[in-house]
């Protein structure tokens, strides 16, 4: 369910972030050891949280269709796996994706001059409207990092409010592009602005900038979500994206969500992975758990 925006937040109300302590805490999640049934459950859960993504200049309608087939049924031999939560494409490919998935899973579209965000708000809002009209029910927007870093936080707030309005019924995921925000305190502040402006999800990265998602930066955002929920009663979703390419890392993210936000966030409604190559590693690990044998990359189709 979408919400009306809250007033522009007060930065002084946010706790500062200690980089050393934060990174230590994030590293602790990596020492959790998932075995047997716990591992299997988490692997299967991770598949259902995937935003299966293709964002290339070379994308074709055929490629998008193939990806949609993969997202709907990731492992043709085992219908109990998946489907993924959504497919995520450029606006021009939304129509093809929407036809292919036919309402069975979500269609997300990046918009607002992804990935740079370097365009006037007018054109960026128009892009959202176009994507929604083509059939997207989720919009992944990027904020204007330059404006944010120049100190115009209120401008970012207004920009997100405008995008949210343009989304209509579609869910809005706000990409902070944390790799360009320089400090964890900035990530915390940008998260707060996005949530108050009405973001349904906050998302780390476009995947086009390095570093993309990391455990510490995701931890900052999860704690922001937790504190926002505590204060307003509103749940906001989280989507780390970029750089999560293997199952082991994905499970570490899930452990972190479980320990910071609790099991109520462990559904595709509130947590997503933005990834393209993660799907097959999850499938390999699931089959390894089932058969006891390691699988080759070539055992699963790419698209």
């Amino acid at each position: 369910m979408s919400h009306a925006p809250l007033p522009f937040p007060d930065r002084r109300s946010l706790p500062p972030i200690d980089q050393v302590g934060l990174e230590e805490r994030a590293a602790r999640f990596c020492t959790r050891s998932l075995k047997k049934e716990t591992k299997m459950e988490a692997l299967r859960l991770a598949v259902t949280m995937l935003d299966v993504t293709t964002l290339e200049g070379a994308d074709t309608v055929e490629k998008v269709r193939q990806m949609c087939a993969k997202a709907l049924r990731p492992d043709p031999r085992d219908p109990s796996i998946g489907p993924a939560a959504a497919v995520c494409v450029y606006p021009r490919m939304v129509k093809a994706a929407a036809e292919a998935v036919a309402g069975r899973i979500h269609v997300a579209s990046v918009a607002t001059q992804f990935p740079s965000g370097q365009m006037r708000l007018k054109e960026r809002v128009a892009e959202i409207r176009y994507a929604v009209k083509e059939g997207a029910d989720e919009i992944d927007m990027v904020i204007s990092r330059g404006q944010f870093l120049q100190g115009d936080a209120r401008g970012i707030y207004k920009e997100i409010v405008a995008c949210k309005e343009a989304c209509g019924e579609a869910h809005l995921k706000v990409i902070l592009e944390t790799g360009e925000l320089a400090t964890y305190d900035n990530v915390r502040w940008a998260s707060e602005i996005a949530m108050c402006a009405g973001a349904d999800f906050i998302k780390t990265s476009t995947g086009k900038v390095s570093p993309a998602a990391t455990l510490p930066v995701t931890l900052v955002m999860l704690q922001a979500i937790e504190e926002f929920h505590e204060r307003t009663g509103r749940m906001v979703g989280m989507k780390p994206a970029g750089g999560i390419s293997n199952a082991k890392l994905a499970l570490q993210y899930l452990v972190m969500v479980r320990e910071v936000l609790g099991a109520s966030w462990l559904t595709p409604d509130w947590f997503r992975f933005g990834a393209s190559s993660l799907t097959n590693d999850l499938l390999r690990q699931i089959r390894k758990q089932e058969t006891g044998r390691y699988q080759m990359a070539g055992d699963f189709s790419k698209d």
Partner: protein
Amino acid sequence: MSNHSFLSGGFAPAPESADHIDIKQSYDHFIGGKWVKASARRTTINPATEAVIAEVGEAGKREINAAVKAARKAYDGVWGQMSGAERGKYLYRIARLIQERARELAVIESMDGGKPIRESRDIDIPLVAAHFFYHAGWADKLEYAFPGRTPSSIGVVGQVIPWNFPLLMAAWKIAPALACGNTVVLKPAETTPLTALKLAELLEDAGLPPGVVNVVTGGGETGKLLVEHPDVDKVAFTGSTEVGKAIRRSVAGTGKRFTLELGGKAANIVFEDAALNQAVEGIVNGIFFNQGHVCCAGSRLFVQESIADSLVRKLQKRMETLVVGDPLDKNTDIGAINSKEQLTRIKELVKCGDEEGACRWETGAKLPRKGFWFKPTLFTDCAQSHRIVQEEIFGPVLAIQTFRTPKEAIEKANNTPYGLSGGVWSDKGSKVFKVGSALRAGVVWANTFNKFDPTSPFGGYQESGIGREGGVHGLGAYVNLS
């Protein structure tokens, strides 16, 4: 859903394998490079299961005499004469062997003492090796450690160590002693003797000359015999304040050098401008590290009143994610209480907290049926006069008080007979330095807690002891200066 369901918060068992470790059924004393048959014996148990792991010796007068004699002989004949560079080689070799056998030592430490494998593997044993490496480096550079003075070795050192960090405390004691040219008689704690005995085996493999390090096991009486032995030149003790006081009385007038590292009741002060989520981690690490069996544990939490409610709520939420159980499971955060006696003491003090009117809260952790366990616990509404605020509990129990001004926080923090450690949490550097300097404690952590490093001196004021261990200051305790 099963207990191991990911969505319900469980973990399937992930035990560290104990197949590769080698523990004998029975151990003797390591004296003069030989295993000398013990005349009396006691058992050591696994506190997580109460199963007997091995029998160890209970040293009496005869064995202590033999050990001190062997140490004296090694001091006069070999170690006291050896060049620093040669001593350093032995220490480097020991450090490397510890690294090679790290996994085995970690597993045994967790079996014998109850601490989670995550800590013994990631903290204790790496620090053990680090202490030997660090002091190996000093061995041939001692003359530079004390500008204008000439250091010389002391002689035979009697060392009595506690059960909370068995091998780490052995390293803290042995490494500087050997680096400075002294020989050692070490008595590990009665409930956790095994890793010290494994260390003795390792020293044999390292080819350390016979008698340079001797390991005798036993209880309090054995320790007393060692400390009071007339041919011991220096006593180093880590343990309870009560025993520390008795040792200080017994060495008075004997001319023996001594260092004592005793109890504590550290204040952890969180200001409203602190990085709160990281402070919560620091509080957890401060009091629940090693089941709270830590002399420098942050057992008194002072929170500025404006953030008290939200901080306690965050803390409770975090505590609910702590996994209590099998110390050998890789997901365990809180292992077993070290002994039945310690569990009894924790329970007694917690009961006292209830009776005195403090408000108790504990996590919903399910405790195993066998073994010694205690749930992570905190008290709010504590008064300075409560026993749970004044006395060292040495368990996973936190006493929380609030304060309004920095002055009040400092006053309350210093209002204790102890003075081992303290913590300050604020994002404002000037405040951290001001408050940190005002805390009367040997170690003060800023925006972190329970961090240890061989280069950093550790020790306390008042009833927390005398002398420092680690760093250049620690070397000073093992040399005579002229």
